[in-house]
């Protein structure tokens, strides 16, 4: 941490105590604080002021890992449907690079097997695979010209999360909590949830903190009553016993604080108080039984199950509790083959809960302060992959794919970007991943060129030297 960081941290800490009345103030620390107000803090999650008035306070990113087929969900291409089964025109293929090149030479155009209709006031085209999301068409802004830079899952995922294809940079959630801290006293500031047959490729690297302090890395919540490592006490450590230990630890720490005057001890006391609260709030958070039957039904959530539906509901519960950033992963979108059977299954798993999340947030008055993003690391080709017939699928495609956003400062009911007749290349309004990141930070009140961290002599950013705020997305 540089000197400036430290000064601003001390500043933050003062702000934290004096102006916000948050955190330690509520903890049984009164006597300590009366004696000595900590001047500097190592509490990395102390809330910090954004650069300017934010539109959103928190972010929920519904990440469809594997590359969902935008051409079968959001991009209606009648010409492609007509050309289906024919060899792709040379003009589309020339100079293009794909994953699994050698296979691509044999492939044909593939129209969408699903029906499209226009929805909402905006008349957005959405296929029959996503009826619930379609019903929300006027709340969401669909981008059909997202562009990525690498057509393999691992680097593309790292890129979509960190702005670099090389592992080791901080993820967007880490940047956000580094910039803003968190308003949750009892839960980590950046949480990840997962459903699907396996974890997303590269796992912790995509929610890591890179060169930022490790406190900013995403904390994966696991299904069940113990979402965080070490949340449950060891056998024989009853709540009463833990409570006795807690009081003794606090008292010994207070004595040492009096002897040394080191503010770190005050922070540690606060950390322990938070930890003990987490032991209760964690299981309470995970327990969906208290949700109304209507809510559970709206999401399709079933208490006790590990599903995308449950995770969407958990995401709402997390941001309700002040968590800054929630990444919800649903895997298994990599449909090189069996598109016709697998894609409807995935859509069936995510359509209702994704839409329910937006609707639920809206009903609770939370949508205007919560940014919801839905998308994957890239899309899929208008050209087939796999063998003809039932097994047919689509290859990875990075030149144009879809992502939608809703809530916190987003102008809903619009479709951004046009692609050519077969949905291969963008025709206008390209949105780079760095632009999406810049826009996300902007909505959170952060200037993406100013949210920097000095590492190896350079001021690094989530957007590297790129990125522009997509004004069209803003309400």
């Amino acid at each position, binding site marked *: 941490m*540089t*000197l400036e960081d*430290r*000064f*601003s941290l001390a500043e933050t800490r003062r702000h934290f105590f004096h102006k916000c009345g948050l955190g330690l103030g509520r903890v049984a620390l009164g006597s300590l604080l009366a004696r000595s107000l900590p*001047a500097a803090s190592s509490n*990395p*999650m102390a809330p910090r002021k954004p650069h300017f008035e934010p539109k959103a306070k928190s972010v929920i990113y519904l990440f469809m890992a594997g590359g969902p087929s935008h051409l079968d969900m959001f991009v209606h291409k009648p010409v492609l449907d007509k050309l289906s089964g024919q060899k792709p025109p040379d003009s589309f293929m020339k100079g293009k690079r794909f*994953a699994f090149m050698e296979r691509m030479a044999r492939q044909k155009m593939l129209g969408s097997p699903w029906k499209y209709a226009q929805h909402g006031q905006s008349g957005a085209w959405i296929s029959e695979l996503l009826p619930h999301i379609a019903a929300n068409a006027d709340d969401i802004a669909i981008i059909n010209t997202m562009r990525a830079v690498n*057509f393999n899952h*691992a680097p593309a995922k790292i890129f979509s999360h960190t702005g670099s294809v*090389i*592992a080791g940079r901080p993820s967007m959630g880490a940047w956000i909590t580094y910039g803003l801290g968190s308003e949750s006293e009892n839960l980590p500031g950046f949480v990840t949830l997962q459903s699907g047959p*396996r974890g*997303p*490729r*590269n*796992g*912790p690297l995509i929610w*890591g903190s*890179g060169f930022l*302090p*490790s*406190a900013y890395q995403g904390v*994966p919540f*696991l299904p069940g009553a113990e979402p*965080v*490592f*070490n949340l449950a006490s*060891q056998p*024989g*450590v*009853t709540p009463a*016993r833990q409570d*006795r*230990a807690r009081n*003794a630890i606090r*008292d*010994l720490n207070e*004595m*040492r*604080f009096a002897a*040394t*005057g080191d503010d*770190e*001890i005050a922070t*540690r006391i606060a*950390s*322990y108080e*938070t*930890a003990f609260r*987490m032991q209760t709030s964690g299981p309470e958070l995970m327990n969906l039984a208290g949700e109304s039957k209507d809510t559970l039904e709206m999401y399709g959530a079933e208490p006790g199950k590990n599903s995308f539906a449950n995770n969407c509901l958990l995401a709402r519960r997390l941001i309700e509790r002040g968590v800054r950033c929630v990444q919800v992963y649903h895997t298994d979108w990599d449909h090189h083959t069996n598109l016709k059977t697998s894609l409807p299954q995935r859509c069936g798993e995510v359509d209702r809960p994704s839409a329910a999340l937006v609707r639920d947030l809206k009903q609770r008055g939370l949508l205007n302060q919560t940014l919801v993003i839905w998308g994957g690391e890239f899309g899929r080709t208008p050209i087939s992959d796999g063998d003809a017939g039932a097994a047919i699928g689509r290859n990875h495609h990075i030149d144009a794919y879809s992502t939608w956003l809703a809530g916190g400062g987003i102008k809903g009911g619009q479709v951004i970007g046009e692609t050519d007749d077969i949905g291969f290349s963008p025709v206008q309004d390209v949105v780079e991943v760095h632009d999406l990141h810049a826009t996300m930070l902007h909505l959170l009140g*952060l200037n993406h060129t*100013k949210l*920097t961290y*000095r590492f*190896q*002599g*350079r*001021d690094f950013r989530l957007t590297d030297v790129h990125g522009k705020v997509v004004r069209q997305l803003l309400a």
Partner: protein
Amino acid sequence: MQSVNRHKKLWLLSGVGMALTAALPGQDTDLYEREVRPLIEANCLGCHNQKIRMSGLSLATRSDAIAGGKRGVVITPGKPGESRILQVLRHDDPVKMPPGRALPAADIAKVERWISQGAPWPDQPVRAAPKPNHWSFKPPRRPSLPAVENATWVQSPIDRFILARLEKEKVAPSEEAPKTTLIRRAYLDLTGLPPSPAEVRAFLADDKPGAWERVVDRLLESPHYGERWGRRWLDYARYADSDAGSRDEPRQIWRYRDWVINALNSDMPFDRFVLEQLAGDLLPNPTNDQLIATGFHRNSMIQIEAGTDREQYRVEAVFDRVDTTGTVFLGLSVGCARCHDHKFDPISHREYYQLFAFFNTADEWGNDRPRYDARIHNLHQVHAPLLELAPPAEIKRRDGLVERYYKLGEEIDRIKEENNGKKDDPRIKEIEEEIKKLIKQIPRFESSMIMREWEPRRETNIFLGGDFLSKGDRVDPGTPSFLNPFPAGAGATRLDLARWIVDPANPLLARVTVNRIWQDYFGRGLVETENDFGTQGSPPTHPELLDWLAVELVESGWSQKAIHRLIATSAAYRQSSKVRDDLKESDPGNYLLARQSRLRLDAEIVRDAALTASGLLTARIGGPSVYPPQPDAAMQASQVKKSWKASTGPDRYRRGMYTFFWRVTPNPALVVFDAPNTMTTCTRRTRSNTPLQALALLNEVAFHEFAQGFAARLLAETPEGGEQRIRRAFELSVSREPNAPETARLRELLAAEIDALRTHPEEATKLNGPAPPHGVDAVDLAAWTTLSRVLFNTDEFITRE
């Protein structure tokens, strides 16, 4: 923590001077010379020069300035009203320059006046790169020891520098820390393990002169010194036991870790230590140890993904080696010159690739021999050259078997081709059977990843904008010209680079090295930006002391132990870490070092301290990495599921530095206490203070075992129980006696625990896990386990005071 302030700094650079040769006739260039040029130099030229041209704009010459940039014309001579630069300077434009705060109005008025006079500017500037005058680029000279008033305070030459500054500022140093604090500090700092109560008592009883120096000398001779300081070096070396990437394959390179430990324990001269790590393989007839030492640069990540461009990842590994070399040995952010000339330090884009050229010639197994990869992958999981520790004849026999294996694979390919890709051929089945048998016969040898040159030597081109696909000029190996001369020519190798780095004429190596050692004794380096000694780094708080130590390191024959001894025996180091009210205003950051600092222990040492107190520690040094128990879910997140079978027996209780480090799913107890992620070099650890740390110490299975072990030890060693036992518990955990309130508080806890457990003895059974040894009361053991947990969770336990 957004670096808003920093931007100001960013724009305040000069370093680009302009000598003027001729003025345009009839123009008064005086205003420009006196008023405007200094403004441009100080505020604009860092980015708007002819090389960087941020936003397409250069302000290096009049014609550049008038031509404008990507956003159009900014200066119209004679017409301030049409000159957008004025709006930009006033921050009345969407573009606001300099970023951050606008220049004072008086300065902007000067620019306005100058424009209205027709922007006179002699248009033939000579852009002479000035000889860098930065302090760290000049060789250190040994300063004389400053005079001090309070000479009795001085214990080591270091103290004169510290005290002279304190006296100048009229601040008194702190008193010496209590002896119990001191000895725990020294043990933790020098060996990473707390002292035993007997060692504490021996020190307390030793009132002969030189008692402290004897402790320090003994600790420097302890084999645990090499572990403690070796672990620190491994941070710099980004040491890990796996590749990263989505597969995160395991790798065998722990022998490099052990080489570091041994080298430090034997106090290998630091120049030799550096040389062997950078180029041990290029020494004449290298020994196995010298080859193993080159593991330093093998610690780069290997990210091989199906369908990716291998060259990109090979190049990334080379970038990592260049950047790590710059950071660790030069304290320079050379990585900034990867895409363009360094904006602040005199390292050009070309020079970056000259450094790159030294590492670009290395053998990267997987990258150079794609034919081998997919199949050898299954066989060996190896993507780097190895030193195999087996008799040559055995290796030769194995190579024969591997060759046979490849032949068989090719045979299958051939048959498939014959059959148009169909696999159902009886011949294929037969061959596959043979392959299965063959794989079982192929022996696997103990090995360590090493560096090796690849023939023919790869040529190096500049990558324009850092993009490995945009090749610019070809370059030969070389070093930045502003540092000591590089005698070797175009055919120079890594060995020449290593010799250049350890040349005493190099102004940086010794300074950077002593500064990092200092950093671990005081919590901060004399240069706070330990990885940036360039013009953007912070200046040293005690420049003469830094140089004195740097010269001392070289003149002591590069003995690191000599530097440790100088620091650890100083009065400055021995000061109390108690926060002083009188310094809160004048020096809240403790830059003057009028006291010591309390420092939270490193992740590994948190574990080591608990292992030591509980008596469970297996003190064996080195060997393959081990698998202490960890939460079951810790390995869940990886794409390729890995098993973590907890070690049993002595390996369950090894020091934290021996825990197997998976880059993608590292041991949670290490991560939570800020162990480096090993993706890139780490020259300073963060010290965070979070609730997840509390949860780890309170609830993690490993720490629970330590508490159980601690309780059992206390019961066995203090049969008298009660206060004696509380006292023993304090001595074992924090190396001091408890005071009366602390004892009373723990007695209260103990009484409540025993009460509760007598009512619910089944809770004791659960707490104790396995049945207590014969003669041990289960309730007693369980109650003391809780007390042990409490002590392990105190701030003092995980802090070196």
